[in-house]
């Protein structure tokens, strides 16, 4: 009886697990063998783009809702189904925004570099979408399995900087240009800790392939502690650094200096309106999703379930859950922290994150060298590795925050 149930559960589970692949194969089954590859690729691309475009739409409204709730407001709740009184908690808002953006006049300054002005948002969006190619969304659900997947991800991500520059320069507006340069300085500064923080993962996993890295994180210690990288000292530190750097790389608060409305009149986006602006916006969210997806893949076990019995839930669900959690933390942080000044921002990168990432590299080396320590001695391994991270963190942190004190006012009280 129970065996039969187990069988049914297993087959149902495997069916669910392979559902996306089965659906794809079903769709392209009738095609000749040679065309099937192309069709499969197209379907994959379309699925990813559509999925993330809808996620983007959802995120815009969810973000506004979260921000509103943090500020004790209900948030956008008016737009529902048009021409009816059904409001649906305002879920029609993204659609309305989209229509508004599409129908707005596309203003291009006369002195602007027309071609580049057009190319900038397109390039940004294209590169952002490219980064999704190597993220494993589930078991066997990776659009492009590359041997050097991580490298590909960061190569494609690095190219987005170019688009920022193009936008700033093509606008022929000195504020835009200055803002673009500042944005570039920020992006380049944080590229370093971002890359350094993933080196331990690559080192310990012994692979540059995203699929391989996720597979390395399978299994549980004592049956309930997953082998995710974030549950090691170096992994936790690496994830923290990666997370902060990802915040900065995706121009999210508190590092949203490149787009700061109040200081830079929206930076390199000043001269953009309408659909191009929407493209920029979309690319930002895509970049954020891609970075979060990479964080999930590298540190949070990718599509692995957190507990053994939860494996019956399909892997792509777990990936989505982790991704959404990370995105929620992004919003939460945006709702909490004020924007950093440019000097504080670069100081944080160069004087705090980079040294810490380098130390973390050393800790990872220590971890790798002591891989054969078992039994009680493992506690020592943990204590040493933890101390090697926490100590520098406290020391560098003290150095970083020294000299920062509540502001004193001479003439006002």
């Amino acid at each position, binding site marked *: 009886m129970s065996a039969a149930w187990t069988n049914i559960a297993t087959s149902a589970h495997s069916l669910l697990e392979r559902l996306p692949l089965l659906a794809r194969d079903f769709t392209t089954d009738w095609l000749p063998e040679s065309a099937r590859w192309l069709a499969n690729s197209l379907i994959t691309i379309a699925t990813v783009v559509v999925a993330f475009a809808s996620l983007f739409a959802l995120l815009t409204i969810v973000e506004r809702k*979260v921000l509103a709730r*943090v*500020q*004790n*407001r*209900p948030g956008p709740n008016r737009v529902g189904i048009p021409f009816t009184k059904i409001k649906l908690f305002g879920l029609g808002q993204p659609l309305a925004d989209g229509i508004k953006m599409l129908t707005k006049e596309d203003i291009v300054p006369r002195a602007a570099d027309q071609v580049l002005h057009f190319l900038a948002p397109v390039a940004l969006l294209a590169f952002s979408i490219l980064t999704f190619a190597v993220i494993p969304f589930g078991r066997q659900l990776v659009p492009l399995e590359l041997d050097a997947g991580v490298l590909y991800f960061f190569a494609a991500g690095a190219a987005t900087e170019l688009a920022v520059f193009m936008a700033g320069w093509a606008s022929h507006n000195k504020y835009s240009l200055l803002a673009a340069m500042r944005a570039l300085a920020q992006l380049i500064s944080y590229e370093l800790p971002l890359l350094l923080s993933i080196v331990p993962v690559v080192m310990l996993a012994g692979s540059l392939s995203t699929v391989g890295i996720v597979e390395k994180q399978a299994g549980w210690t004592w049956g309930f502690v997953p082998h995710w990288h974030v549950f090691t000292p170096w992994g936790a530190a690496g994830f923290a650094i990666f997370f902060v750097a990802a915040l900065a790389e995706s121009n999210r608060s508190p590092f949203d200096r490149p787009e700061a409305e109040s200081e830079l009149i929206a930076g390199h986006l000043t001269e953009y309106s309408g659909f191009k602006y929407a493209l920029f916006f979309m690319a930002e969210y895509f970049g954020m999703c891609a970075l979060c997806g990479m964080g999930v893949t590298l540190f949070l076990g990718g599509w692995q379930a957190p507990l053994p019995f939860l494996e019956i839930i399909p892997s792509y669900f777990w990936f989505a859950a982790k991704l959404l959690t990370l995105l929620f933390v992004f919003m*939460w942080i945006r709702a*909490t922290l004020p924007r950093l000044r440019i000097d504080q921002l670069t100081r944080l990168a160069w004087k705090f994150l980079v040294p810490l990432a380098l130390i973390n590299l050393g800790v990872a080396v220590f971890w790798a060298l002591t891989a054969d320590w078992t039994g009680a001695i493992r506690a020592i391994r943990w204590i040493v590795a933890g101390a090697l991270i926490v100590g520098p963190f406290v020391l560098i*942190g003290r150095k970083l*925050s020294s000299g920062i004190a509540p502001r004193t006012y001479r003439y006002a009280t």
Partner: protein
Amino acid sequence: MLGSGLLQGLAVTAKNLVGSFHDPARLTTVEYPEQRTKLPEAYRNFPFLVSENATDPMGTLRCVACQICEKECPPQCIYIEKSKDKKPDATGRPQLYPTVFDIDTSVCMSCQICVEVCPFDAIKMDQVFEIATTDRFTALLLDREQLAKPNDYYHTIHPTEAAEVDARLAAERKAAAEKAAAAAAKAAAAKPAAVAGLGEAGAPGSSTPATTKPPAA
């Protein structure tokens, strides 16, 4: 340690986020067009003309077309035309009345000077703010009919002030009535019977004989 402040901040925002769902006291937002809050009494915006009652606003305007407000208005947004004839006012004395009283609210700056200078408490500040229209020219030029609002409305928006005004007007009328009574008593020496009847009729709202002079004069 570095980061403790960040965590405290995150805790505060998380508390707010969660609290906004289960603690209705936190959500202070008013769903505006459906729900409205009562505006504070001190809020004032654009003048209106006070009429004594709502049934015949044009007939019971307090305004006597003295044109002081028109002269004092800094942006010159008031336009008044006097009537040719006279009608009895609240105290019963015959007064002029405005045949045209226009305020261009696209020019008006809600400075309240017209209210300050009006000797008859005939123009008061309103609380309207939903003044958006689709017509730039005529819709914002309010005429006599649009401006006239009953004294009860005045009581609903500025109750304290309205009470004061009413008390003052009542006192004036009483004084006017007493004066009239005194004058009637003097006249009663000559014609006592007729004046006694008129003195009874000197209550607010009723008309006064055309022979009596305004108290201010």
